C-alpha cells in the first residue's frame, strides 16, 4: 500500500453556512497503480489531488502515506516526505519562465540538497530519456505547449518520486500532443513502476488508468476498474 485516505472531509464556511468540498472520501492506492479522477467542475477533483499532494490539509479524516500519518507529521517531516516521493504535473505546465529547461528540471534537486555534480548527472539522464537534450538551454517561452509539458513531467520525475500527481496534464494541449503525453505516462507506469494519479475531464485519457474514480459534489460517486 502506497497511500490511504480515511473519511476525509474538507469544507469552507461561506456566509455562515458550511459548504463541503469533500465528503467522506476513502481511497487506498497501491504502488504501481494508474488512477484517474473524473467529475464535473466543482466536484472536488483538484482539492482531492492537493490533499494527496500534501499541498492542502483536510478538515477531518486520516491520511497515511508510506506508513506515515501525514496530518500528524510536523511541517518539516511532511516536506521531507513530499520532496522525496511526490512529483507534480500541471495543466498550465508551471515552468519558471526565467529559468532554462535544464534549470527548471534541476530546481527540485536543488531543494533536495543534492550535490552539484550529482545533479548534473541526474538532469543529463532525464534530458536524455525524454529526448530534449537539444532544448536544454531554451526558455519555456521558446517551446510549444507539448514540449513544455514534457519538461514539466521531466521535472516531476527528476527527484525519482514514487507517485506523480497530474492535474489535467493535457488540458492545454491539442489531441496529438495530449496523446503523446498520455503514452508517456503509460510507459512510465508500466516500465518504471511509477504510480500515477491524474485528474482529467476526458474519458479517453481516463481509460489509460487501471481505475477511475468518479466524484460528484465532493463524494465518491462511482469507482470503475478497467
Amino acid at each position, binding site marked *: 500500500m502506497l497511500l490511504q485516505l480515511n473519511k476525509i472531509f474538507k469544507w469552507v464556511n461561506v456566509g455562515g453556512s458550511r459548504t463541503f468540498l469533500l465528503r467522506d472520501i476513502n481511497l487506498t492506492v497501491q504502488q504501481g497503480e494508474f488512477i484517474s479522477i473524473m467529475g464535473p467542475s466543482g466536484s472536488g477533483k483538484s482539492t482531492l489531488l492537493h490533499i494527496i499532494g500534501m499541498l492542502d490539509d483536510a478538515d477531518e479524516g486520516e491520511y497515511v502515506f508510506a506508513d506515515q500519518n501525514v496530518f500528524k507529521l510536523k511541517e518539516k517531516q511532511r*516536506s521531507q516526505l513530499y520532496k522525496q516521493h511526490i512529483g507534480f504535473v500541471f495543466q498550465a505546465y*508551471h515552468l519558471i519562465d526565467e529559468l532554462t529547461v535544464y534549470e527548471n528540471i534541476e530546481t527540485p534537486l*536543488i531543494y533536495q540538497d543534492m550535490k552539484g555534480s550529482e545533479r548534473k548527472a541526474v538532469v543529463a539522464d532525464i534530458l536524455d530519456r525524454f529526448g530534449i537534450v537539444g532544448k536544454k538551454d531554451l526558455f519555456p517561452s521558446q517551446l510549444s505547449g507539448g514540449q513544455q509539458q514534457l519538461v514539466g513531467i521531466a521535472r516531476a520525475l527528476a527527484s525519482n518520486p514514487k507517485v506523480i500527481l497530474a492535474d489535467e496534464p493535457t488540458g492545454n494541449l491539442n489531441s496529438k500532443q495530449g496523446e503523446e503525453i498520455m503514452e508517456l505516462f503509460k510507459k512510465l507506469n508500466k516500465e518504471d513502476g511509477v504510480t500515477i494519479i491524474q485528474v482529467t475531464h476526458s474519458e479517453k485519457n481516463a481509460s489509460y488508468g487501471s481505475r477511475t474514480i468518479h466524484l460528484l459534489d465532493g463524494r465518491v460517486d462511482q469507482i470503475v476498474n478497467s
Partner: protein
Amino acid sequence: MLRNYFKIAWRNLFRNKLYSTINIGGLALGLAACMLIMLYVAHEYSFDRFHKNANRIFTVYSKTVMGADTMQMLNFSYASAPIVEKNDGAITASMRVKKEYKPVIIQNPEKVKAKFVESSLLYADANFFQFFSFKLLKGNSKTVLNQPFFMVISEDIALKYFGNADPIGKTLQVKNDSTYLFRVSGVMKNNPSNTSIRADFVVSLSSLKSMPEAEPFMESESFQGGAFLTFFTLKNQNDVAHVQHTMQTLGKKVDKDSKDRYLLTALPDMHLKFDDSANIKYIQIFPLVAILILLLALVNYMSLSTARATLRAKEIGVRKVNGASRKSVAFQFYVESSLYAVLSFGFACLLCVLFQSRFFNLLQLNIDASFVYSPAFIISIALLLLFTILIAGLYPSIVMSSFKPVEMMSGKKSSNGSGVWVRKTFTVLQFAIAVALIVCGLIIDRQLHHLRHTETGVNRENVLVVPVQKTMGISGNALRKDLQDLHGIISTAMAHYPLYKGYDMFFIQGKAKNENISLPILSVDEHFISTLGIKWRKAPIDKFVISQPKKVVINEAAVNKLNIQGDPIGKTIDFGRDEYAIAGVVKNFNFQSLNAKIDALVMFVAPDTTNTWGIEGNSGASMFIRVNPKTNLPVLISQIKNTYEKYDKDTPFEFQFVDDAFNAMFKAEDRLAGIFSLFIILTVLIAGMGLFGLAAFTAQQRTKEIGIRKVLGATVTQITTLLSSDFLRLVLIAFFIASPIAWYVMNQWLNDFTYRIEISWWIFALAGIIAVLIALLTVSFQAIKAALANPVKSLRTE
C-alpha cells in the same frame, strides 16, 4: 543553489527593465545622498582627532561676565600657560599659539615675483610639533621652532615661494608693521581638512619678544585674558576638574571679585563649540535627513518589490511544489535583494564621486581625499551597505515566502489585502516626507528672502568697501580726495570697521549703582551717514556740528537704552574721562548681523580732514565709496585700484560691495537652503519614481477590470480618473500628516531669528499642489496607457 538564485535575479533584472531602473535607481539616489551626508558628518566629528594625544589635549576658555552679558573668551595672556602649568602637576605640557589677525605680505627676497599676501601665519611655542601631531617632512620636531624667527612652512607654500628648491635654511621676508626676516627651519605636510588649528606658516612664538607691534600682548604677567590660544596636555583626561579648579584659584588671585569662570574643553570638541557654530545645527539636522532619505529609498524598494511579488507568485508556487521550504524561498529573495542593493550601492558610489565636489561646494566645505579613504569612513560605508541589504531584503522575503502554492495553482492571485495596505502606507509615508521637505524648503527660501530684503536703514546698493591698512600711512585722506575727483563716484567716507563686521564696546556708568550699560561704538567720518544713506531722526542744526570735538551722534535705540527724556539734542553722555554732547539722532539701522536686534549705537564722528585712519585702528580702516550705478563699474574699479596703488604699494587692493557683505551674513542659511533644495529634488524624485512603479503595477494588476469596464462603456477619461484618484487620496492624506509636522519644525527654526516671517497658508497650499501635480504626472501616464489598451486583448489573456 546560490548560483541558481543569482541567475534568476539577474535575468529578472533585465526582463523588467523599467522596474529594475526604478528600483535600483531610487535606492542608489538615496544611498548616494546618505553617503555624502555621512561623509560630511563624519568629517565634522573627526576634527582634531588625528592628534596622538587628542583625548588628553584641552583648550582653555573662560566665561567672562561683561555688564549683563557673559562672553566666551578663548584667548589668554602670554604668561597664562606657564603660570597654570607651574601650579598644576596634572599638566604635562602647555602650548600657546597666536594667529596673525591681519594679512601680512610675505616675500622671498631672492625672487621678486614670489610676493603674496598671506593670512594664515601662526606664532607657536617651540614644542608645537611635539604637542600636536602635524607631520614634519623636513626638520627636527624638537628644534624647528626653538629660536626666534624660525619658520616652518607647508608643502604648498614651499612650492609657492621656492619652487622645487630645498627651502631649508632660506629666508622669507614678512612685512607686518616692520619687516622681519624668518629662516625656514622645516617643512610640514599641508594641514588636513579636519583641523581647527590652521596655518601655512608656523613661526616661533619667541619671535614676538623682539617685535614692537607685539608689545601690548606681552605685557601682562598674570593669568588672565589676552591674545593667545592656550592648550594643555593633561596626564589623565580625568584631571579636567582639578585643572579648572587651579585656574579658578589663579583667576581669583588676579581679581578677587571676578565672576569669570575658567574652563577646559577637549580639543576634538573645539571645532563644533567655537569654530563653526553654524555647523552644529546641520550636524544635528543632517543625520536625520539622511535617515529619512534612506528610509524613503528603502521603503520605495520594498514596496516595489512586494508589488511585483504577485507577478512572481507563480514562480514561488512552483518552487514550493518542487520542495522549496519557506526558508529557502526567503533566502532566495534575500539573495536577490542583496544583489540589487549591491548594484545600487555601486551606482551610489559612482554618483558620490560625480557629485561630491558640487555637494561640498554647496556646503562650502573642504574635505581631504585621504579622509574619504580612511578606514573609519570605509567601515561606516560598509555598515551602510550591510544595513541596506538587511532591511531591503527583509520585508520582500517575508512577504514572498508566505505565498501558498495551492492559491497559486487554483488561479487566485496572491494579492493579499495586507500587502496592499502596507504599500499604501509606504506611499503615504513617502509623500509625507516629500511634502514636509517641500514646505520646509519654501519656508527657508521665504525667510532668506525676507532677511535679504528687510529694511535695514542702510542704502547698501552701489557702495564699495575698500580696506585701508597701516601701509597706507597718512595718505588715506589724499586717496579720498583723488577718488572724489573720479567720474562716477558720488561720495566717499571712512570708518574704522566695515559694516556688519565689528564695532567697539564701551561700558558706561548707569544711573543706578553698579549698573553698567554697554554701548556699541562706531568711529566714522562726517560723510559716513550720508554716504550710506542713513536717515536722521533728529538732524543736527548744522551738519558741521556733528564732527566737532566732544559731540556724538546716537541712534534711537540709544535714546531708549540711556533712557533720555525729552529732546536728546544737547544732552550729554558721560564716557568717564569726558562728557559728550549729543549732536543728532539717526534712525535705527542694522550695524551688526541680523541675528541680533538693533542695539544702542554711539557714533564718534571725525571731520574729513582726519588722515590717521589707517594708523589708528589695529586692523586698519575701511573706506566706503558710493558709486553711480550708471557708470561702467569694471572701468571705475580699475581706476580706483590705480589710485589706491599710487598711495599704498604694499598692501594689495581689495574691495567688497556692502550688499555682498550683507548677503555673506546669511552663509549658514544659504547653505541650508541649498542643501534643502537638493534634498527636495531627491525626495521628490524618489517618491515620484516609487509612485510611477506602483502605478504601473496597479494598472497591470487591474488590466482585466479595466477591460471589463471598457467593454461596459467606460471612457478613457473615466478610467484614468479611476486609477489616479486612488493615489491622489494617498497624497492628500500624506499632505495632512506632513503639514502640521513641518509647521511645527519650521516655527521652531524661525524662532531663532530676530527678523522672521510668519508662516502663511499659501506655502502649504503650494506644497500640496506640487505634490499633487507630481503624483498626477506620474500616475496619469500609466493610467492613460492602461485606459487606452484594447479590452479584447486584455480580456483574452486572462
